[in-house]
C-alpha cells in the first residue's frame, strides 16, 4: 500500500527514531524487515561521504532480513531486535566479514568466529548492516586516525547546524569545516545518528562510546565491567575495555543491554550470575534520589555552555525533588596519568601478537624472523599505536615496573575507592559532563596530536573505566551552534538498570531534538506535506 510506504520513509526519522517503535511496526506488519533493510542500505549509500562504514555487509543483511521476514510471517519473531538493522564497530570479530580495527595490520583479516556480543545480536535476529569506522585499534578520541580516513559528524550537515552557521558566517565552503564525531567509536555513532541503523556496538576503554555519543546527539552506554562479554572484542586494555551501546533513545539501549548482558564461559572476567532482559520502568518520582556532583570535574577547560547545561541539569533534578549534593573524588587529577601508564602497558602486551605470521599484514622481508617482525609492525601500525607500544614497554621493563606499573595500579585502586566512598555515602548516581565542549571541526581537532587530544577529551569519562562502573551519556540540548551536548551519569557497579532508569527520566525531561537531515533524504521531501497523516497513522 503506497501511502503506508511513504509514511514509513518519513517516520524513519521521527516515529521510527526508536528501535522499540519500529519493532512494534514489524510485528504488526506495517513494514517488513526487507523494506527496513533496504531503506537503511539506501541511506548508507547516500551518507557514504560520512565514512561511517568500513565494510557494508549488504548481502548478509538482506539474507538476514529474508529470514526475519519468514519468522514474522509465521508469528515467531525472536524478540524486540528481530529484523532491526544494527552496525558493529570494526574491532569486533565477525565471522566471514573482514575485521580491520582500521589498521593496515589487519587489512584483509577475515575472522572465523563471531564475538559473543555479535552472536547474541544475530541470535535475536538483528540485521548486520556493516562494520563501522574507528581510530586505529580504538586509540583516539576523534575517529580521525584510522587507515580508512576520518569519520564525519552527521550534525555537520544538519539543518540545525547549518542554519546557525549561515547566521554567523557567509561564503564559507560548506564541507571543508565538517565536524568530528569524537571517538574512537565515531563510525558507530555516525551510523546511528544518520539513521543507517537503529543501534550500534562501540567499545569503551576511556570514553570511546560516550564521547562520540555526546558529539552526535546519541545515548552512549558503557556497561559495568564484567557485565557484558569481551570475547571477540579485539582488546585495547583488557582490564578496562567494555562493549558499548549507541542508540537514539535510552529504551533502545536497555533492550540491547538486556540481550548482551550475562555470563560468558569464554570470558573469565564476566560475572557468574545470569542476567534477565529487563524493561525500564518509567520513573515519575525522583524525590528519593540523591545526585552527586563531583567538584573536581569543574575544570577551567570546561566550556561555558557545557557548564551551564550541567548546572541546569542539576537544578532540574533538584526542582523535581531529588537531593543534589556536591561530592569529592579527590584523586581525579591523577586519573589521566595513571590511565596512560596502565593503558600503554596493556597495549604493548596486546599488540605483541601482531607479527605478520598467522594473520593480517606481512611485510616482504624474509631475512630473519626478527627482521620480519620489525618491518611488519612498522608498516602495519600507525604512529599512535607504535607510540603507545613503546611507552608501554618502557613501563614494563624490570627496572621501571615497580615505579610505574605497580604505582599506577595502586593509584587506580585509590580512584576506584573514591567512587566507593561516594556511593556509600548515599549517592545513587553522579552527574557530570561527558565532553569539554561540543564537537569541533576536524581542521581544529588535528592541530593537536592524538595523545594530547585523548588526554584532554577523556577527562570526564576514563575514571569510570578505571573503576569498572557503568556510565551513560544522554544528549541534553543543542549548543548555540546547533550542535549536541550530552551529560554523563555514572552509577554503582552492576546497577546498570537503575542507571538507565534515571537516564530515561532525564531524557524525557529534556526532550532533545531529532537531527534534521532532510537534505540527505531526497525522496522524503515530498512527504513533508503529509506530516500529520503520518504521525497519526503510525501511533500504536
Amino acid at each position: 500500500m503506497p501511502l503506508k510506504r511513504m509514511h514509513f520513509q518519513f517516520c524513519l526519522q521521527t516515529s521510527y527514531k526508536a528501535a522499540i517503535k519500529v519493532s512494534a511496526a514489524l510485528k504488526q506488519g506495517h513494514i517488513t524487515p526487507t523494506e527496513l533493510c533496504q531503506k537503511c542500505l539506501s541511506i548508507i549509500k547516500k551518507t557514504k561521504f560520512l565514512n561511517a562504514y568500513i565494510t557494508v555487509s549488504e548481502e548478509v543483511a538482506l539474507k538476514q532480513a529474508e529470514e526475519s521476514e519468514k519468522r514474522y510471517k509465521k508469528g515467531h519473531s525472536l524478540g524486540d531486535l528481530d529484523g532491526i538493522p544494527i552496525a558493529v564497530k570494526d574491532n569486533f570479530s565477525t565471522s566471514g566479514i573482514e575485521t580491520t580495527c582500521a589498521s593496515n595490520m589487519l587489512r584483509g583479516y577475515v575472522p572465523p568466529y563471531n564475538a559473543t556480543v555479535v552472536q547474541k545480536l544475530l541470535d535475536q535476529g538483528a540485521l548486520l548492516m556493516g562494520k563501522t569506522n574507528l581510530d586505529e585499534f580504538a586509540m583516539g578520541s576523534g575517529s580521525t586516525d584510522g587507515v580508512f580516513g576520518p569519520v564525519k559528524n552527521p550534525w555537520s550537515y544538519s539543518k540545525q547546524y547549518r542554519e546557525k552557521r549561515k547566521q554567523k558566517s557567509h561564503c564559507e565552503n560548506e564541507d571543508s569545516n565538517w565536524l568530528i564525531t569524537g571517538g574512537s567509536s565515531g563510525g558507530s555513532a555516525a551510523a546511528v545518528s544518520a539513521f543507517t541503523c537503529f543501534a550500534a556496538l562501540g567499545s569503551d576503554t576511556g570514553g570511546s562510546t560516550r564521547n562520540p555519543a555526546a558529539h552526535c546527539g546519541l545515548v552512549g552506554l558503557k556497561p559495568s565491567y564484567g557485565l557484558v562479554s569481551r570475547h571477540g572484542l579485539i582488546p585495547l586494555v583488557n582490564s578496562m575495555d567494555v562493549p558499548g551501546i549507541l542508540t537514539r533513545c535510552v529504551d533502545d539501549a536497555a533492550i540491547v543491554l538486556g540481550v548482551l548482558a550475562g555470563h560468558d564461559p569464554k570470558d573469565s572476567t564476566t560475572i557468574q550470575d545470569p542476567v534477565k532482559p529487563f524493561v525500564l520502568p518509567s520513573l515519575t518520582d525522583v524525590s528519593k534520589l540523591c545526585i552527586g556532583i563531583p567538584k573536581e570535574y569543574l575544570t577551567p577547560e570546561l566550556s561555558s555552555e557545557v557548564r551551564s547545561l550541567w548546572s541546569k541539569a542539576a537544578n532540574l533534578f533538584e526542582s523535581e525533588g531529588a537531593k543534589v549534593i556536591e561530592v569529592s573524588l579527590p584523586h581525579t587529577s591523577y586519573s589521566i596519568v595513571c590511565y596512560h601508564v596502565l593503558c600503554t602497558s596493556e597495549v604493548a602486551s596486546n599488540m605483541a601478537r601482531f607479527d605478520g605470521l598467522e594473520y593480517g599484514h606481512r611485510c616482504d622481508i624474509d631475512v630473519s624472523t626478527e627482521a620480519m617482525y620489525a618491518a611488519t609492525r612498522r608498516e602495519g601500525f600507525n604512529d599512535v599505536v607504535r607510540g603507545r607500544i613503546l611507552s608501554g614497554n618502557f613501563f614494563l621493563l624490570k627496572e621501571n615496573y615497580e615505579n610505574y606499573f605497580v604505582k599506577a595500579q595502586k593509584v587506580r585502586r585509590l580512584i576506584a575507592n573514591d567512587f566507593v566512598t561516594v556511593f556509600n555515602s548515599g549517592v545513587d548516581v553522579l552527574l557530570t559532563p561527558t565532553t569539554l565542549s561540543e564537537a569541533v571541526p576536524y581542521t581544529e581537532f588535528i592541530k593537536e596530536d592524538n595523545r594530547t587530544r585523548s588526554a584532554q577529551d577523556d577527562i570526564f569519562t576514563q575514571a569510570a573505566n578505571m573503576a569498572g562502573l557503568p556510565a551513560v551519556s544522554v544528549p541534553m540540548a543543542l549548543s548555540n551552534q546547533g550542535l549536541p551536548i550530552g551529560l554523563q551519569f555514572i552509577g554503582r557497579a552492576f546497577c546498570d538498570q537503575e542507571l538507565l532508569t534515571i537516564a530515561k527520566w532525564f531524557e524525557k525531561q529534556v526532550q532533545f531534538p531529532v537531527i534534521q537531515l532532510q537534505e540527505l533524504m531526497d525522496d522524503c521531501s515530498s512527504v513533508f506535506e503529509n506530516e500529520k497523516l503520518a504521525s497519526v497513522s503510525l501511533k500504536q
Partner: protein
Amino acid sequence: MAAPMLRLCCPGRRWALACIDGCSRHRRGAPNGCTSSRRRGQSSVAQQPFITAQKPRKGEHEWAAVVGLEIHAQISSKSKLFSGSQVHFAAPPNSLVSFFDASLPGTLPVLNRRCVEAAVMTGLALNCRINKKSLFDRKHYFYADLPAGYQITQQRLPIAVNGSLVYSFCAGKNRSQVINKTARVKQIQLEQDSGKSLHDDLRSQTLIDLNRADYEIQRQINELENGGEILNETRSFDSKLGCTIPMRDKEGKQDYRFMPEPNLPPLLLYDTESLPAGADPQQVIDIDRIREQLPELPSVTREKLVQQYGMLPEHSFTLLNEVGLLEFFQNVMKETRAEPKKVTSWVLNTLLGFLKQQNLAVSESPVTPSALAELLNLLDRKAISSSAAKQVFEELWRNEGKTPAQIVSEKKLELMQDQEALEQLCHAVMEGHPQVVMDVKKGNPRAINKLIGLVRKATLSRADPTVIKEILEKKLAS
C-alpha cells in the same frame, strides 16, 4: 634444564662467594636487585653478610655443586590449559580451542579445571603448600612458536610452593645399598606450553641428561678458581666441542616484561572448611577432595611390595620406574601360584630384558601377564625345567598365538613325570657307565653330576635334574 650453582664450602664455616644468584633465569629478580656483581669477590645476595673473599687457590677447597632443575610436565587432559572446553557437554571440544591457541585477536584464555586439579594433586603429592590464591602473569618475548608474543604463566604467586621429594638411588658394590635423599621443590606453577614437547611421548618419560651438567660444573669451578665470576645466563651444550657455550641474546639481557594477566582473575581454591555454602561444585575446587582422590604414592607402593612379597628395595624401584611393569607384575601374581621371588625375577630379568633389547614398552609386550603366569605355573609344578621355560618364553615372544601349554606340547618340553620310566633310564645309564658309578662310590662328588648329565641327555633334557639326582643316589646307596 639444569642450572648448576657453586657454593664454596669451608669446613666449619659457610660463606658465599661470587654470584650465588638464587634467581632462576625466569624470575624477575629480588626487589633489592639480584644482579651479577662486576667486582671480584663481592657477594651480591643481599641477605648474606657482605664478605670480601680471597681468591681460592686450586685444590684448596672442596666445592659443593648445587643443581637446580626446571621441569616442564605436560598435563594429561583433553584440552589445553587455557582453551576452555564445555565440561558439561560430551560433544567434541569447543571449536574455539584452536582460535585461542592461534592467538586470533579477541580470543580470551579460559582456565581448564582438570589442569588445576592436576596441579593441586602434584603439589599434594610433593608435600607442597597449596596456595589458596594464585595469580597468572604474562611473560613477553618474541618467538615463532609463541603466537601471542607472550606466554601465560604464574610468576608472582604460583599454585604450590615449598615441597619436597624423597628419592632413593642404589649405590654400593652391587647397587644393593639404597640411599635416601631429599630434594626441595621450590614451586609448582601452571604455565602455557609454547608448543615444544620435552617429552619422550612413547614412554612418558622426561629424559634429563645430567652428564652434561658435569661439564658446566667443571667450567664454573675453573672459572672461580681463576678469580673469575659466574654470570647469570643461559648456556647450551655443544656436543662437538664438548662444553657449554653462551646463548647470547642480541639485545643483551632478556627482560620478559612480566605483567599480570588481566583476563584471568586470581585463582581461588578452597578446602572443606573454607568452601562457601551453596557453591556450585562445577565452579570450585576443594583441595581436601583432591587429597582424598590422590592415588597411592610410589614410596607407599614400594614399601608394600617389600613387605608383602619380601621384595628387595632395589627391585621395587625398577618395578615402579617402568611404565606398566607394576601392573604387569600384579596381574601375573593374580594368576600364578609361583613364589613372588620367582615372578619378580622373571619380570625384571627375562621380560624386561627382552623388552629393552627391542626397545619396547611394557604395553607392547608380545607376552601377556596371563601367558607368563601360565608359564610360571608349569614351572612351579615342575611340569617343565627352567631351561625349558626359557625356551617357551622365547617362543611366546614370537607371538604366534600359541599358549605355553601348546608350545610345551609341540616342542616336547615336558619334564618326564613317569617315575618308573625315569628309574629305568637311570638304571640303564648306570649299567652303561660302570666306571662313573665306581667313581661315585669312591667318593668323587663331581662324578654324580656326570651321571646326571648322561641321564638328562638320555631324557632329551626332559627330566628334572633334582629328581634324577634323588633316584641315582637312592640306587647308588642300595
